[in-house]
């Protein structure tokens, strides 16, 4: 790196480090409580039932961490509530333009958060072994203009199983479509739960 550029980079790094050093204690807002009613408490599915649900949509590969568990469907209002919380938190921290830019740049964050919270909530409310049917779907970005491609070509959506089938949440806009109606379903690569 040329000296002038190096000096610039060091100055930028110093500013960032200074900002970190001056920050007070953690300021993450408390997560909203997740009521038990947000789950269809009796709607846990077997592996075969999940496979049967997936057969209703065009062939998309699916990867599951475990294949011998019960799978808990989640409700659409819960997914909407958590996405609203996530976006609300970002709005407290960033200006509105930056919120959209952040979501376009890091759609996987939304999916990871929803998946983790859903499965911890299964543990909390049901105290049984089981995975929540919340995960992410990778899609070839090709025709998608709302996200910044990860690894140059992949876009990410949240996918979740609800009592009426699989749905897709656009992490940038918050829009929810049935998986069978998802406009880019032919470009989907993998559902991972």
């Amino acid at each position, binding site marked *: 790196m040329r000296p002038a550029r190096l000096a610039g980079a060091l100055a930028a790094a110093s500013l960032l480090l200074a900002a970190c050093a001056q920050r007070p204690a953690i300021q993450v807002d408390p997560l909203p409580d997740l009521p038990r009613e947000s789950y269809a408490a009796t709607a846990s599915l077997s592996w075969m039932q999940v496979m049967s649900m997936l057969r209703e949509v065009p062939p998309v590969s699916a990867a599951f961490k475990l294949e011998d568990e019960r799978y808990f469907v989640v409700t659409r209002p819960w997914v909407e509530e958590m996405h609203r919380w996530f976006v609300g938190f970002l709005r407290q921290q960033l200006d509105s333009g930056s919120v959209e830019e952040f979501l376009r740049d890091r759609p996987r964050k939304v999916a990871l958060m929803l998946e983790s919270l859903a499965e911890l909530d299964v543990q909390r409310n049901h105290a049984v*072994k089981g995975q929540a049917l919340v995960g992410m779907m990778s899609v070839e970005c090709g025709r998608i203009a709302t996200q910044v491609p990860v690894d140059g070509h992949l876009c990410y959506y949240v996918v979740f199983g609800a009592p009426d089938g699989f749905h897709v949440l656009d992490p940038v806009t918050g829009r929810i479509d049935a998986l069978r109606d998802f406009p880019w379903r032919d470009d989907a690569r993998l559902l991972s739960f």
Partner: protein
Amino acid sequence: MRAEELEREVRRHSPNLFSFWAPKKVHVVLDEDWLGRAVDWYEDLLFGMGVTYRADIWDCENYSQLLVVLASLEMVKYWRADVRVPIGWFTVMPEVPWSGIPAGAKHALVMARTRQGLVVIEPQTGVRAALADYPNRHRILEVFFE
């Protein structure tokens, strides 16, 4: 530091690593004290949610992913599209028990790069250690920095 440097550093401690993924961006190293406060906050959050460790439930990746997402969210006010916070999660096949988690079954934990070096965090108990001192570092399989 660049993603390639981060990977080299991880592989120096964990030469048997099967796969490594990190965004091809500049990663701004974390402050050790900040990381400690973030983990403490997270443990309080889990306690408040009524979520506790259960040996019979395979949910370690959920604890790990959630800590990674929330910790990086805390940094969002300093967000720039061209930088990332070096905190991620990894899988390991532990040879020896560590932080109250038994050996012998695949496990997921958190890894972060602070100014003091790479740190391993057990998100279910809040225990932290330098990667260099983590007894199962040679058994780490996959690392994902988000």
